């Protein structure tokens, strides 16, 4: 079977659609992690430590792969970037785990389901590496000549746009919130807690960010739909 035949088979069998949905779900998984960290920062008032910021950078780096897959088309290089991002992020997680490895050390920050956030971050990075490796095994999706979801009208494109917009807004919030905490210099190793918005305020903030992402995605989806050159 030639590469062209295999590519056509991938399209016909819907494998490309499944791969795209997996990328969208991966984005929403990362959004969950980033939203959780922003809830702790703005809802509870826990300022992120420098190692926490490195791990957030790793999470954002993982998101680069799925976003490029959805906007540019499936390519092995995009998954490779996610794997590299997960490895850099896990370096920060492992460093922080080792700092609190001694018996009796209470760890840094609150624990969720018995594990601290940096341990959960390492679990997330490991899942991302394994997930990308499995997606790389799925070679048929790369032979399909995919050009992304931009020209594909439908709910998948809208969901992809929501995920991409949400991650981008989270990135902007994380980036801007670094300024009052660290200024332009080095961040403090143990930043002081701030007055948080409270549990309800944190949830409302998360919902508001999601709502803005949906609005941005709807506008982008509408603009793409009104393009005359679109191939439906």
């Amino acid at each position: 079977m030639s590469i062209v035949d295999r590519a056509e088979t991938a399209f016909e069998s819907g494998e490309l659609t499944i791969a795209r949905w997996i990328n969208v779900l991966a984005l929403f998984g990362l959004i969950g992690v980033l939203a959780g960290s922003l809830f702790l920062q703005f809802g509870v008032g826990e300022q992120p430590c420098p190692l926490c910021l490195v791990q957030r950078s790793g999470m954002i780096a993982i998101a680069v792969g799925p976003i490029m897959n959805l906007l540019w088309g499936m390519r092995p290089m995009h998954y490779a970037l996610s794997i590299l991002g997960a490895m850099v992020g896990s370096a920060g997680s492992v460093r922080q785990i080792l700092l609190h490895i001694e018996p009796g050390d209470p760890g840094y920050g609150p624990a969720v389901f018995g594990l601290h956030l940096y341990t959960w971050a390492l679990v997330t990075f490991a899942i991302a590496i394994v997930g990308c490796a499995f997606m790389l095994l799925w070679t048929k999706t790369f032979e399909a000549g995919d050009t992304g979801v931009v020209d594909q009208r439908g709910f998948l494109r809208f969901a992809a746009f929501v995920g991409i917009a949400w991650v981008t807004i989270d990135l902007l919030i994380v980036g801007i919130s670094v300024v009052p905490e660290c200024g332009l210099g080095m961040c403090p190793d143990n930043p002081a807690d701030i007055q948080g918005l409270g549990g309800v305020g944190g949830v409302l903030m998360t919902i508001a960010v999601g709502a803005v992402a949906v609005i941005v995605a709807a506008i982008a989806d509408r603009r793409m739909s009104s393009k005359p050159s679109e191939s439906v």
Partner: protein
Amino acid sequence: MMLSMFILWIAVFLGIFFRQKWVPVLAVVSLVWTLALLRLHMTDPIPLNF
């Protein structure tokens, strides 16, 4: 310093949205810079006696 890391990621995202060829290169640069910042913040010793 940490702000620069996120400025780089914002540039990467802008590059993706405008389909720029330099995106993978800048993404790798951002990762290397993240590692450099991690190294700069490695001030406390790990409490293990290897």
